[in-house]
């Protein structure tokens, strides 16, 4: 694929009020009905406004929403797999007299985040939604539980960003406009994106470095935001990557920046969603590993690989990797394609569960599983996991 791809849908969305307009808007906002949104929603409002979710210009209206559930595409046939919706209760609608055609203000913690022009208010079926997106209606699935906790109506319409959401990781926040200029400045024509919600172990490092042998640059893009209990804390992930890159990566071929959005744990559907967002950042390739965006045993380990076959028009090339492991006999990091000893005693797998157990006990995982520098940084956190 030659050169930085066009944004998804052909155009990078920008729905941020200019400074001049913003001052006037703050006055106007005082007169409008307001609805409170969560921090996660506020963060996604900014993602829409700054083009991370291009071509979306707001929260989905009914046709797009239903089309995404049924066909994994927007109504205009553009691939899109995760519904981006805003919920509201019937009581709030009634109490505030909100109706289609109104302009409202979305607020987080009393701060106006965005204007929203309400195009449509519609019903939805949470169980149906869960089965379509998560392939289960089991409430033990974190995505399903979250869906069932949402309010009973959805509102769709375009937004305009008034204020950014507080961001403790400003230093590592880049928007698609910025990464596109950055990649161009570096002269990169091919860029592999790596999505992660983990601190890096040796298996991750070898996946990334193998991809980097094929491309000009590597974009390490940890997902920062609400995660489930037991996942790595955001700060821990970033510190771990800082030390890994400093010690073991060619600095001129790697960019570390965050993606602020919550994990949905929608497995294969979320793999496509993650790829689309990285295309918007200007990446040409997207690394898809084992059990991408999975949780528990809800998805097959390579189901996220299979789903890419349904999207010949995605506009970003997936790179599929199977599991990497250390082989004592081969004396190096291998995978099942390169090593004949994968089911023997020679193999040390960088098991996430084992690494987690050791870190929680204050122990250094073996160097074949995790770089000592990375383990040391994580151990300094005491408990580096979400509680």
């Amino acid at each position, binding site marked *: 694929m030659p050169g930085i791809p*066009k944004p998804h849908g052909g155009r990078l969305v920008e729905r941020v009020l200019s400074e001049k307009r913003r001052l006037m808007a703050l006055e106007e906002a005082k007169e409008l009905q307001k609805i409170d949104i969560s921090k996660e929603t506020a963060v996604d409002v900014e993602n829409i406004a700054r083009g991370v979710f291009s071509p979306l210009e707001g929260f989905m209206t009914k046709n797009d929403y239903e089309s995404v*559930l*049924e066909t994994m595409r927007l109504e205009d046939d553009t691939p899109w797999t995760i519904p981006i919706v805003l919920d509201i209760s019937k009581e709030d609608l009634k109490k505030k007299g909100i109706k289609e055609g109104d302009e409202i203000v979305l607020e987080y913690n009393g701060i106006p985040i965005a204007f929203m022009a309400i195009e449509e208010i519609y019903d939805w079926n949470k169980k149906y939604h869960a089965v379509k997106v998560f392939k289960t209606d089991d409430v033990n699935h974190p995505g399903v539980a979250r869906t069932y906790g949402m309010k009973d109506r959805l509102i769709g319409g375009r937004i305009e960003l008034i204020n950014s959401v507080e961001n403790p990781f400003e230093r590592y926040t*880049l928007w698609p406009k910025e990464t596109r200029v*950055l990649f161009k400045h570096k002269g990169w024509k091919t860029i592999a994106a790596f999505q992660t919600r983990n601190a890096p172990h040796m298996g991750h490092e070898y996946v990334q470095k193998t991809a980097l042998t094929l491309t000009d640059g590597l974009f390490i893009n940890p997902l920062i935001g609400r995660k489930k209990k037991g996942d790595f804390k955001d700060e821990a992930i970033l510190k771990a990557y800082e030390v890994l890159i400093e010690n073991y990566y060619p600095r001129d071929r790697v960019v570390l920046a965050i993606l602020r959005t919550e994990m949905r744990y929608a497995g294969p559907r979320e793999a496509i969603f993650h790829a689309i967002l990285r295309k918007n950042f200007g990446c040409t390739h997207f690394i898809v590993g084992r059990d991408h965006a999975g949780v528990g045993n809800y998805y097959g380990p390579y189901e996220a690989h299979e789903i890419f076959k349904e999207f*010949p028009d995605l506009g970003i090339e997936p790179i599929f990797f199977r599991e990497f492991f250390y082989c004592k006999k081969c004396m190096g990091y291998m995978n099942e394609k390169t090593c004949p000893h994968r089911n023997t005693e020679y193999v040390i797998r960088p098991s996430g569960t084992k690494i987690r157990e050791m870190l929680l006990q204050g122990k250094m995982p073996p160097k074949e599983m995790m770089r000592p520098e990375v383990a040391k940084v994580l151990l300094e956190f005491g408990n580096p996991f979400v509680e």
Partner: protein
Amino acid sequence: MDEEKSKKYTTVSIPVQLYEKIKKLIEGTGFKSVSDYVTFVLREVIASIEEEEKEEVFTKEEEEKIKERLRALGYID
């Protein structure tokens, strides 16, 4: 929600001989129908045509402003 109702389709005519060829071609490939295959191929073709269209460019001014921020964050020298 009625699944069939929410899907929208139209009919395109192709020569019967071509239809038969495709039908044979897709046996055992995972494509459920000739329509599925034709949709897949057309999406692929359209995506490649769209990708060849001119790349989005920023104005010099815009690009300089972005570079300033990238410098401030330490991404470029």
